[in-house]
């Protein structure tokens, strides 16, 4: 083992660490002279290369003084600066045009300086890892369970045998079950790197293997190649077990990824399922309606950022109706001024809407600029949670939920409202519907507006996972047509099943064939399928087909 050091040393360190934690617990750090001994160590941080800084950090931690934690946190966050004039190190935070300096040891205010008078002490990934590990060992006994959890995770990653004693003390006191599990893992990881006996190490392997995740696997693979004898063998059996269960989880993961891709496809295609599927308009500008929805989200967020930042988490809810209205209104306009003159002339419709898509793209480009616009993820859309060995990201999960809600909502509108009834009547038999007193031109316009509006709210969702740029829509138009044609033109259920099938097939192909070939294979599959069933998965039957 590389980390081996005299035991007495590690006892000393433990004691110091405990001591410093106790002082932290006793109250806020007082501005006194007792920390002044550390001053040269802190000021030294400003000199040397990354390797030197790493040594200096370790020296600071070894000093065991509690104020070190705040200095290290500032260093990690990139808030530690050196004053050029005298080479003293301060914590600096932006204040107006300059920076406000704080003494890292006493916490005393040290005045304001301009940016050019101070130099940032640089940290890189390696130093951040070192700081995380040392802060972890320093905060294992914190009174806040979330801090303890983070500390245990950091200690697990570092696997430093020197913190073993602190860990054991912390474990004995631990009351929170979740934290305890992670601490036990961390203890096992540290133990495997220590010089303890084989029996204890075999237990540790069991503890780690019981987690069954990728981190455990990674640690055990490293262990297998670094040791011999019973420990290595035990690691090997544990690896096999984990790999077997992970292989099963991989399938579950592919299904989830497939559903999530399917939901994105569904969202992109569902508006088209109305304009193209129900009305029969080859609408090449469909993608641009999606893009406009995304830009509405951007504008809403910009306004919220500027005037009401506390609303940011609700920005998407505000954007949804607006995106529907804006895209819908553009849709109605397009139908009234362009498409209604072109019914029954599919080729002209295709060219006209293609041209329209270029016009809309360039209009957005002129208005908002050609570069990407930042649409932020609200807090509830960021991050991930673990379900067994599955990592499910919140944004994907909410998009799946949202796609289902949109689908259900659209079904309700078409099947349960009088507007839906009119729409179906007009698309099934226009002349009969007109004879019954339905104003068919208005129903056409409103239906087209509905399809475009739905594309707009799809844009709100897609802004959370994709670029918001004028090209946003182009990426989805081919996929949308693919889904609608594959699912069966004129059938919303077909669109749902089509989108999900394509998503899942794509995600099962991707690990074997790669993303590029996977996509090609899906296209070939659809071409063959359409050859066999020209009307798609769920073909409409009866007289509607002939209309």
């Amino acid at each position, binding site marked *: 083992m590389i980390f081996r050091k005299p035991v007495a040393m590690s006892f000393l360190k433990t004691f110091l660490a405990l001591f410093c934690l106790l002082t932290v617990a006793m109250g806020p750090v007082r501005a006194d002279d007792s920390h002044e001994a550390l001053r040269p160590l802190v000021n030294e941080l400003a000199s040397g290369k990354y390797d030197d800084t790493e040594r200096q950090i370790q020296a600071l931690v070894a000093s065991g003084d509690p104020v070190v934690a705040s200095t290290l946190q500032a260093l990690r966050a990139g808030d530690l600066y050196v004053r050029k004039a005298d080479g003293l190190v301060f914590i600096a935070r932006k204040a107006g045009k300059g920076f406000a300096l704080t003494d890292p040891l006493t916490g005393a205010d040290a005045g304001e300086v301009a940016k050019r008078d101070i130099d940032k002490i640089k940290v890189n990934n390696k130093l951040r890892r070192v700081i995380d590990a040392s802060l972890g060992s320093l905060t294992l006994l914190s009174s806040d369970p979330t801090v303890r959890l983070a500390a245990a995770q950091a200690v697990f990653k570092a696997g430093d045998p020197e913190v073993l004693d602190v860990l054991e003390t912390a474990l004995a006191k631990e009351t929170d079950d979740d934290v305890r599990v992670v601490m036990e893992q961390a203890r096992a990881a540290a133990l495997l790197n220590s010089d303890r006996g084989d029996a204890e190490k075999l237990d540790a392997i069991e503890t780690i293997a019981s987690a069954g995740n990728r981190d455990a696997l990674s640690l055990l693979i490293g262990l297998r190649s670094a040791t011999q004898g019973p420990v290595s063998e035990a690691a090997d059996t544990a690896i096999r077990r984990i790999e077997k269960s992970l292989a099963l989880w991989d399938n579950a993961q592919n299904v989830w*990824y497939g559903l999530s891709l399917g939901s994105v496809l569904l969202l992109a295609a569902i508006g088209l399922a109305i304009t193209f599927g129900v009305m029969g308009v080859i609408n090449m500008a469909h993608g641009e309606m999606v893009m406009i929805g995304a830009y509405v989200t951007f504008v809403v967020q910009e306004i919220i950022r500027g005037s009401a930042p506390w609303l940011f988490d609700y920005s998407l809810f505000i954007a949804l109706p607006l995106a529907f209205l804006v895209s819908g209104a553009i849709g109605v306009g397009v139908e009234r001024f362009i498409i209604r003159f072109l019914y029954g002339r599919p080729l002209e419709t295709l060219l006209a809407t293609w041209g329209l898509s270029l016009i809309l793209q360039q209009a957005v480009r002129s208005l908002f600029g050609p570069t990407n616009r930042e649409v932020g993820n609200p807090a509830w859309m960021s991050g991930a949670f673990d379900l067994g060995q599955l990592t499910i990201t919140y944004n994907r999960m909410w998009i799946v939920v949202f796609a289902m809600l949109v689908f259900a909502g659209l079904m309700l509108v078409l099947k349960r409202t009088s507007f839906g009834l009119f729409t179906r009547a007009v698309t099934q038999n226009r002349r009969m519907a007109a004879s019954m007193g339905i104003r068919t031109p208005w129903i056409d316009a409103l239906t087209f507006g509905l399809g475009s509006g739905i594309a707009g709210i799809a844009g709100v969702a897609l802004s959370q996972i994709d670029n918001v740029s004028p090209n946003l829509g182009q990426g989805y138009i081919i996929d949308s047509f693919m889904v609608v044609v594959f699912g069966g033109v004129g059938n919303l259920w077909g669109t749902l099943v089509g989108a999900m099938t394509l998503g899942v097939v794509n995600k099962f192909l991707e690990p074997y064939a790669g993303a590029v070939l996977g996509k090609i294979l899906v296209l070939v599959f659809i071409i063959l399928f359409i050859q066999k069933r020209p009307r798609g998965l769920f073909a409409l039957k009866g007289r509607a087909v002939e209309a």
Partner: protein
Amino acid sequence: MKNIFAQFALAGLMGSTMIGGALAAEDTIKVGVLHSLSGTMAISETTLKDAMLMLIDEQNKKGGLLGKKLEAVVVDPASDWPLFAEKARELIEVNKVDAVFGCWTSVSRKSVLPVFEELNSILFYPVQYEGEESQRNVFYTGAAPNQQAIPAVDYLMNEEGVERWVLAGTDYVYPRTTNKILEAYLKAKGVAEEDIMINYTPFGHSDWQTIVSDIKTFGSAGKKTAVVSTINGDANVPFYKELGNAGIKAEDIPVVAFSVGEEELAGLDTAPLVGHLAAWNYFQSADAEINAEFIETWRAFIGDEERVTNDPMEAHFIGFNMWVKAVEAAGTTDPDAVIDALVGVTVPNLTGGYSAMMPNHHITKPVLIGEIQEDGQFETVWETAGLVPGDAWSDYLEGSKDLISDWRAPMSCGNFNVKTGKCGGAE
């Protein structure tokens, strides 16, 4: 109402100055700008068009060139590769420009090469590329692989102790060639075959779930893992979003990117990405007087106080100043004289040093490795001790390692084979 009249008056005024400009055309030196202003590449290339207009504007304020004013001729090749060749021909034959600044993707550059050769004009190409090319009429002011990819890999290997490598890229010529060079380089450094994973995705790929999870799996083999990304522009945003959401931190699996600059990060919340890396020859954060000036001029020109600068802009800055200097030295804009005068020209770069044009038509540059910060900027964590000369032909690829390029007389050859002693590439 008054406002509208004012606008009409202004439009009329602009119209008349444009006519005036056309009349005075004989007295100007024309510079072609060949960047896509629409289509998929507009996102990156429009900025470069604006940067060129600014540089020409600044030069005119200084009194122009050879006593004449410079005049920009802007065309839009619309991200359409064959159209690049047509527009290049139009610039040279119809508009009679004396030099062209343009192209972004390698395929657009390849498409205009024959035009520049046939009509004997000059092209300045400002983007990092895969190398394996040296042409008499083209000056490569972006990085060759040895000025970006190789140093980045060295940094990860030495500083971060990386032993397992994911080479992820978009499926086209630049990533494929760069990854071929990197793979050969890594193997030469003793990295085993099974410790390298190569992955390609289509242009504009937006569903990164599988690949991010593959990277996670690949990274759990008990060895420090890093991702070397040649993923192109737009596809990066969803890639980084997925990485951030999946909880892959830079401390665990760092990603070093060759196509992600300040412009790409502008569309992203960078808080979850702190610590991921990029390798370039310039960062907006470069601490130099000349850089601060450049940023100030740029923001004033574009009228946006938040607008960022990036590496290809610096390449145009260097290329344009080199061309100006060479024209002044030659005393003419005649292409042959300028091409000869360009070799050896040295101008300041924006990182506080100097860049020189070399006989192989590549330039010397410092290589910087930067980590992404919360404010969307990069912080330089490492840089080469001196300037790195661009190498047109990689030393790590079979066939290409015997080739050198030197456009000075008497050799005047872009692919001289030192083994056979002949001009004409590998046999």
